[in-house]
């Protein structure tokens, strides 16, 4: 990025901080000099560092502060000055009287004796087996001016040790040795330094007045923006995640499936959730003793117990089961229970809707029908089973349809709904179709996967419901599984997830 563009892209915080860095290194100093909060300065420094205009350091720094004695002496004066004041008149004063006369304690007196002798400011003499102290010329001279220690202690604390001058440093070293005079603390300190790019930016000028930051109604009204440049934003920067309103992904996939069927000339059908054995199974020529009709496979309903089914229809279906009646079949050869057929249950298969449509008296021939229906099975929940799931099913009715049309239809479905080119169609078994077939498609990761089943409705299904025979290709697809492929999911429970984070982040297509 050229330097002009870079200058235009600076945030107001950056503009305020950048020119100050040549004067102030430390975060706190930059904050007070710029009038920004420390966090704001820090953000500015980080952005500037990203732009390679500054270097930011985090260093351990020593800070010196006054300790309890130090604070006390700033108020009452250093002990050595008070000591010398007592000796100012040149008298010899016995050591034993010094504490009393100066108001210092014994420790302080001892410290002063050592310290002032070292400086040559006093003499310690022995007189009549007693020690006495006397000020020297040097001592008098010392007393007349400010001690370097006093000067040091009068400074502003805490102070950065690294910033001490050479003289200050030696005073600091001396004072540090004295009892409770100074305290030294180590802090991690942020500091900044301009890079050569930073210096160039400062030279170029980063004054706020030449730049439009947020566009406001005031700026638009005044037309101010005409004389200024707009701040350039770093468009690559991360912003907090935002979740808008969204359709549920699987439901949206089902919407797509519906529109696909409609485009292929199919009309939608449906039926009730609470079905009867009759429409769910008997009309589909599933014998009443069939293993899929156990209480372990279907949910039966407490109330209503029995459904209203036209008795003329029951009679025809019963005859087909028992003897094949006029269908050309010998039937299942058992005694059909006309009470059981009315028993209410939750629809176990969407094919019940096909049976209803064929028996409705409104069947259009030729016709194509589909349903996207909830079905219910007595199943333990795991990654591939739910007791409550979607099925798509339907049929094509037309004179003269054959197994070869069925194969053509399955190929078309595999292509349209699963983008599958490589498919396999093998013989299948459903009690209501003959011939029957199953459709498998090659999945890039999972290998051969069953997509659905199909067949030509048995005459024993069609004739009792429709009153005549016509060829009907029935088909069903495990749409939940196809949906999982399309959405890249591996667990069927994710199709009905209540995890809001998942729902918000899941892809729609």
């Amino acid at each position, binding site marked *: 990025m050229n330097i002009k563009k870079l200058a235009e892209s600076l945030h107001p915080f950056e503009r305020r901080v950048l020119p100050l860095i040549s004067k102030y290194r430390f975060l706190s100093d930059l904050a007070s000099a710029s009038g920004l909060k420390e966090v704001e300065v820090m953000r500015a420094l980080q952005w500037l560092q990203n732009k390679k205009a500054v270097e930011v350091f985090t260093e351990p720094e020593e800070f010196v502060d006054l300790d309890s004695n130090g604070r006390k002496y700033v108020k009452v004066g250093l002990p050595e000055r008070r000591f010398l004041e007592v000796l100012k008149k040149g008298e010899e004063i016995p050591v034993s009287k010094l504490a009393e006369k100066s108001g210092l304690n014994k420790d302080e007196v001892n410290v002063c004796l050592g310290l002032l002798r070292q400086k040559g400011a006093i003499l310690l003499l022995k007189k009549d087996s007693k020690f006495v102290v006397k000020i020297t010329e040097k001592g008098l001279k010392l007393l007349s001016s400010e001690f370097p220690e006093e000067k040091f202690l009068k400074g502003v604390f805490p102070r950065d040790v690294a910033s001490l001058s050479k003289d200050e440093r030696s005073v600091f070293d001396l004072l540090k040795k004295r009892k409770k005079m100074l305290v030294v603390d180590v802090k991690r300190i942020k500091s900044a330094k301009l890079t050569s790019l930073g210096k160039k930016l400062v030279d170029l000028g980063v004054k706020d007045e030449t730049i439009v930051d947020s566009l406001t109604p005031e700026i638009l009204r005044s037309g101010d923006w005409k004389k200024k440049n707009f701040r350039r934003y770093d468009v690559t920067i991360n912003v907090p995640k935002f979740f808008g309103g969204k359709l549920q992904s699987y439901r949206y996939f089902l919407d797509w499936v519906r529109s696909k*069927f409609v485009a292929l000339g199919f009309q939608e059908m449906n039926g009730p959730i609470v079905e009867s054995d009759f429409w769910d199974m008997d009309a589909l020529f599933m014998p009443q003793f069939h293993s899929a009709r156990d209480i372990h496979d279907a949910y039966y309903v407490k109330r209503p117990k029995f459904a209203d089914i036209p008795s003329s229809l029951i009679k025809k279906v019963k005859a087909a089961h028992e003897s094949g009646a006029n269908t050309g079949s010998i039937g299942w050869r058992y005694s059909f229970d006309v009470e059981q057929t009315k028993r209410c249950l939750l629809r176990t298969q969407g094919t019940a809707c096909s049976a209803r449509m064929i028996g409705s008296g409104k069947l259009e021939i030729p016709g194509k029908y589909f349903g996207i229906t909830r079905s219910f099975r007595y199943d333990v929940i795991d990654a591939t089973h739910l007791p409550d799931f979607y099925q798509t099913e339907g049929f094509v009715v037309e004179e003269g349809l054959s197994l070869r049309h069925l194969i053509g239809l399955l190929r078309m479905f595999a292509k349209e709904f699963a983008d599958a080119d490589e498919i396999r169609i093998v013989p299948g078994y459903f009690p209501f179709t003959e011939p029957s077939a199953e459709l498998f498609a090659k999945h890039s990761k999972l290998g051969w996967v069953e997509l659905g089943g199909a067949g030509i409705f048995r005459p024993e299904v069609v004739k009792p419901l429709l009153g005549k025979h016509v060829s009907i290709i029935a088909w069903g697809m495990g749409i939940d599984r196809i949906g999982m492929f399309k959405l890249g999911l591996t667990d069927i429970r994710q199709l009905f997830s209540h995890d*809001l984070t998942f729902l918000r982040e899941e892809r729609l297509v």
Partner: protein
Amino acid sequence: MPTISFSLSDLNKLLGKRLDKDKLEKLLPCAKAELEDVEGDDISVSFNDTNCPYLWSVEGLARLFKGVLNVSTGLYSIKVSKSGFKVVVDRKLSKIRPFISCFIAKGKKVDDYLLKQIIQLQEKLADSFGRRRKKVSIGVYPSKKIEFPVSYKAVSPSLRFVPLGCHEELSLAEILKVHPKGKEFAHILESFSEYPVLMDSKKNVLSFAPVINSELTGKLDVGDDELFFDATGTDEDSVYLVANIFAAALADRGFKIESLVMEYPSKRIVSPTLAVRRLKVNSDFVNRVVGSDFGERELKGLLERMRYGYSKGVVVIPFYRGDIMHPVDIAEDAAISFGYDNFGALSLSSYTVGKPLPEVHFIDSSRLLWVGLGYQEVLSAILSNKDLLYDKLNVSDFGTVEIENVMSHTYSCVRSWLLPVLLDVLSKNRHVDYPQRVFEEGLVSVRKGDSVVDERHLSAVSAHASASFTEIKQAVGFVLAALGVDFVVEEFEMGCFVPGRAAKIVVGKKQVGFFGEVHPSVLENFGLLVPVVGCEINLSLVLEYKSKK
């Protein structure tokens, strides 16, 4: 779906051909079967066709493959000689378990593998095809221990014998009460005062049908080389079919099959019956169903590979197949014989107009409007439970479809409204960033007496620190206006809302929904610490009103 296990080398021996795993897998679709598992020589295979039990044995599978692979084609038959023995059937069984079919198989030693195969076929036939022994059950015995003739009769529950695997005598009644098999199958006999047993001429019990064999005569062992077989049951065709299937399987193993006479009170049947059926089917019919152009000769070849006999428009169905009901069944087998892969596909040619259900456009429009308001759509199970639907909402049951054979309490009824489902969603996402706005559109079922109405409902909830009545009223107002629905709002009380902060939506004098501020006691039930407002609209009613207008 029945599943069987066998060894591949055994299949190859029966077949007289060497198949490897891959070849087997390619061949299985013609038996509507799939490879389940392979471990070295051990194969397990599952069958889709629940109505074709002869295939549920390695012998049956080999018999079909012999045809398909042209090893041996045409109508299958076995040689049977007369044993000279009979089984006398008691008149009193006619209401209990009337039918029986027996045979004797001789001349091969039973080894460990064969014993397992016999037990496997016996179990598959009795469990899957025999409806857990209710319709058909099977007994196999070492024939040398039996003194013929055998009688099949109804006896008092006090009759005693030693059941297989036991050491002491138990009465039939005791067996049903204490023996594991007795307890498992007692329900089959619960309505009868006498029970069926097979007994030899020395009055030794062979078995208590359909429950258990006797320890004395009913224990088949490795090394036995003469077997007596019985199938008993309530459905005559099925009983004979099961005996035929078993006889064919043992004959394929090299056993010699001997027949017995089943002496019923009013008829005599030679068992195994080995009865074949004839069905009129010609190439025109098959071609119509399949879309093929098979000539008569070609059809004959195709059907003979599936082990049928065929001549001039008549198919002869082998005695071990009871699944052929209609000529379409023959047409399918011809197509399988030809190979589904070998047919060219035909496209549909008729013109039809596609259309969704009439309500779909309206429903989808409502969903889009809620999305526009920033709501996330959810999709939930239709099955629910009354605790969630009513108790947690402080609302009483307004008509629910309940499941009788409940598997788990969570899914014990059909949902009757959606608001509770959405509150449940919120309660599962307490740790997720707010605001949370979710909606669901879907089916609910409401029961009124003995009738059930499926309705399309839409519910939406908004949960965040400043959720308010105003917010939900604005949202409902926006959506209904955009849907072109004129409505008025009236005061409304419902246990789940704060009194005085709920309203009903009235369209053409009919209540079509409600909205309001969810009561804190309900929030407490869901563990929610954030205000929630919500609504529920019966789209079916709204649409009904709109289409009337």
